């Protein structure tokens, strides 16, 4: 903090309308079932140390915060708003890097010089962020609150004084120019007295051979010595001599270092952390959007209908896009019945569908855009999952018994505001038992009124009251082939009778379209 800077009464935030605190949160129990633990790793492993996982594990319960975040995320998806913030993140990384170097170096002048670089980067970064926000003033409340804070912070006289000192120290150093002579084990250093650039003269002689823009030969990076941040003993000797040759310039750098040890503002550090959360997610989905996959900001609904159109499992989608493929998009609609029963072919995408429904709700409750063309969802009070678990040989109880215990716990917690996801919960029961238990389970869930997706091989359960039947489709011409489409009813056969030429876009109309009309 710059000494004496005043703190506004209300702390700004991208996360919600009122300032929130984010404790370290442990992973919700449904994370592994929904592959959200994997997603968490994909999103934040490159940004360890910022505690972004805490945000990711805390779905919102109130609509006001949800709207606040959706507005921020929407705005950040436009480059205009996110570019300045990205610059700010790079600034903060640079500042931290320079401060680390200043701390580690053992040479006192180099310490002060690295410190000056940190201060310079900090000031430059804040100024350009403020400049960008003045040009395109943020619309969302979250970003506006920071924009206003930033203005107040920079208008503060303490900040202006700090900026002035940094500028003067830099100017002083810019004027340091010296001459070296190296010959047979002797080095002479003195102030620069003039003299022309001999390399230029050599170039001048051969100028006729260079193209109009000079040489096309690329300038090469100068040596590898700069990779080492620490000075060697000769460089230290030169730097100490320069401090004697240019005493005024060096005195300014020294006093800046003495006077402003902790200048990074904690509120701006919070902005950094919050912005990283949003950008990590938006950067993750950007290539998927680019590959043509839809994302949407769901509308929050208190009552049905709830639906999602052309949605997909985000983790699977990211994997497929990385391989140059695309996931199959699926829909669901909840109107009358609140239980969706998914049956049909093995390996037909049923589990992925249930997982997708869960992911949509969790991501929605974080205020982020979710995979899908359009969606209207409820903000669940809790998400309860039961995905077939691998048998635990240590467990003295039978698999079925363990499953039933888990299901009992789940039912106890379920409420009309819960989202319940059951994936083959009866796979370990004998067929006759499974039917009875399944019937019982579904009756309970209907009474509870929880929004439920249940994946099962027992298609007769689909005929129960309050249950809507969804089926994992196969290709009617080749039932061995899965389409990975989950439909409310079996689809009709598809027409594949496209002419070869149309496939290649070579009919007159198609070709005209490709060639862009013309004359």
């Amino acid at each position, binding site marked *: 903090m710059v000494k004496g800077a005043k703190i506004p009464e209300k702390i700004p935030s991208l996360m919600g309308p009122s300032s929130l605190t984010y404790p370290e949160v442990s992973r919700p129990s449904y994370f592994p079932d929904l592959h959200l633990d994997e997603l968490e790793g994909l999103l934040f492993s490159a940004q360890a140390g910022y505690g972004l996982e805490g945000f990711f594990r805390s779905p919102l319960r109130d609509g006001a915060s949800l709207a606040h975040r959706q507005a921020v995320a929407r705005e950040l998806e436009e480059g205009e708003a996110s570019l300045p913030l990205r610059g700010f993140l790079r600034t903060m990384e640079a500042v931290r890097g320079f401060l680390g170097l200043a701390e580690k170096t053992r040479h006192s002048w180099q310490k002060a010089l690295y410190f000056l670089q940190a201060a310079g980067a900090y000031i430059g970064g804040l100024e350009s962020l403020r400049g960008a926000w003045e040009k395109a003033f943020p619309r969302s409340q979250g970003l506006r609150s920071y924009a206003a804070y930033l203005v107040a912070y920079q208008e503060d006289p303490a900040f202006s004084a700090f900026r002035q000192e940094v500028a003067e120290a830099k100017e002083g150093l810019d004027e340091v120019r010296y001459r070296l*002579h190296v010959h047979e084990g002797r080095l002479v250093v003195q102030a620069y007295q003039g003299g022309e650039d001999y390399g230029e003269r050599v170039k001048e002689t051969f100028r006729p*051979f260079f193209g109009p823009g000079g040489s096309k030969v690329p300038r090469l990076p100068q040596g590898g010595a700069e990779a080492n941040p620490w000075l060697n003993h000769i*460089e230290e000797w030169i730097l100490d001599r320069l401090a004697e040759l240019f005493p005024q310039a060096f005195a300014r750098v020294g006093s800046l270092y003495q006077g402003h040890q902790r200048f990074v503002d904690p509120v701006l550090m919070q902005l950094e952390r919050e912005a990283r959360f949003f950008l990590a997610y938006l950067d993750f989905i950007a290539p998927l959007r680019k590959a043509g996959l839809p994302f949407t900001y769901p509308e929050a609904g208190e009552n049905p209908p709830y639906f999602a159109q052309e949605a997909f499992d985000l983790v699977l989608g990211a994997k497929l896009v990385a391989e140059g493929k695309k996931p199959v998009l699926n829909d669901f609609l909840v109107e009358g019945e609140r239980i969706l029963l998914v049956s049909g072919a093995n390996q037909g995408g049923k589990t992925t569908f249930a997982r997708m429904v869960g992911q949509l709700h969790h991501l929605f409750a974080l205020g982020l855009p979710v995979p899908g063309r359009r969606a209207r969802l409820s903000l669940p009070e809790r998400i309860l999952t039961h995905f077939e678990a691998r048998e635990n040989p240590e467990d003295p109880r039978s698999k079925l018994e363990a499953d039933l215990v888990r299901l009992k716990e789940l039912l106890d917690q379920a409420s009309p505001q819960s989202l319940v996801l059951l994936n083959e919960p009866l796979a370990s029961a004998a067929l006759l038992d499974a039917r009875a238990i399944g019937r019982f389970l579904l009756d309970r869930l209907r009474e509870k009124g929880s929004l439920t997706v249940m994946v099962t091989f027992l298609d007769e359960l689909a005929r129960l009251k309050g249950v809507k039947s969804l089926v994992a489709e196969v290709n009617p011409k080749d039932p061995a082939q899965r389409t990975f489409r989950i439909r409310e009813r079996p689809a009709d056969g598809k027409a594949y009778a496209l002419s070869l030429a149309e496939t290649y876009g070579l009919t007159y109309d198609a070709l005209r379209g490709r060639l862009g009309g013309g004359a």
Partner: protein
Amino acid sequence: MRVGLLHPQEDLDLSRPLPFAWEEVEHDLGLGAVLEAMAEGDSFLEEVARKVLAQGLALDPAAILYRQGSVKEALAQPELVENLYRLAHKTLEAKRRESWGLFRRDRPDLYGGIKAMEALLRGLKELLGLLHASPGDGRFFSPGFSELSARLAQHLTPRFFQEAEAHLQALRFPRGVWMAARLGPEGRGQDYVLLNPSPPRRRWPLGRGPKAFTLTLHPRDESGARILGEIREHGVYAAAWALAAAVEEVTRFFEALRAEVGFLLGAVHLFRRLQSLGLPLAFPFPSRGTRLAFRNLYDVGLALRQGHAVGNDLEAHGRNPILITGANRGGKTTFLRSLGLAQLMMQAGLFVGGEAFESGVVDGLFTHFKREEDPALEAGKLEEELKRLSRLVDRLTPAPLFLFNESFAATNEPEGSELGVGVIRALVERGVRVVFVTHFYTLAAAFMGDPKAFFLRAERLPDGRRTYRLQPAPPEPTAYGQDLLRQIFGHGT
């Protein structure tokens, strides 16, 4: 410095990639024979000829005429062209021996640069000598050669050679290295500038110069010596880079010279070969738009392979598409090749095989020829054709020439014709010049009402003999396949 023998503004750049599907163009047009004749066994010449023919598709009529001047000059002074080619080759060899890769490490090699530049300066002196020893004493009728000669005379003065040689001496640093530097942000020198290595010794009248500090290394301070060496390198770097860059640029000049003169040498080779066959050769007239006319145009590739070729005449200004029908084995493919080759050779600035040729320049040449090979793939043949065509359509340039040879023949006549008509219409409307050879009457007949369409038919005499000439004539509902049947099996007569 520009060589500029092939283009008024720029040098030949061999690193430019070939146009999309160039191998197919080369194969379909039978360009191989032409390239071989130009190269006479020199693989570099073959490469240059290929690149120049491919890059000709980017030229405008003025640049083509400029290049024709250089080709004509080369035909008039073949020995000069050969000598220039040898000199460029020799100089580049010498440079390569002195410095194999100036930039091979992270910094340029100063000593290698000095040696390489010495070799290049020798080459430049010889080049001046060669141009002056030519019959016109450095004077030429073509703009390419005369401008090159003038540029060299202007820049390669005795003063230039003197200065260059003085630099090569000074850069050995007999009295140490002087340099200026600024303080970098982390306390290290930056922006090193080399100062004159042999400055005049300064006298300070009051006895004391400006304040200076001297560090004398202990003889056993090895790391200090290494560091001092690095600091010295920082200063020398800029000059070493300047010298290395100069070496690269002069080398590039010789490379361009070798390539451009190489193309002209190839032109001389080709001209001599065709002339020895007694075939006519003419410099074409490049124009704009859909102009097309020629007299006695023959397939240069066929002529080189067989020693003779039949020519055709045509006048089809402003006509597009051109549809060619008629008897099997009647010369349709040969005609298409002669047309494609002439267009390519014209655009490259060469003469063409014929008595006269005029055509609008195009910016791309695309060929879609029926593939004879792979009979096993019969079922997927149409698909292969469509796939190939679709890829070409993706890469279409703004104003190309598109040659089709029996496309869509893999399917039956009604389907193939419908497909072909659609493709031709769409391409023509988009401004593509289309020449389409087909034996589908239905396809060609679909354009009979189109005043812009032009029809050619392979001639067949009443007795069934072929003349291999094409005549302007609308399509006929038969392709005389029975003629062939009769000829080969001798029945039905």
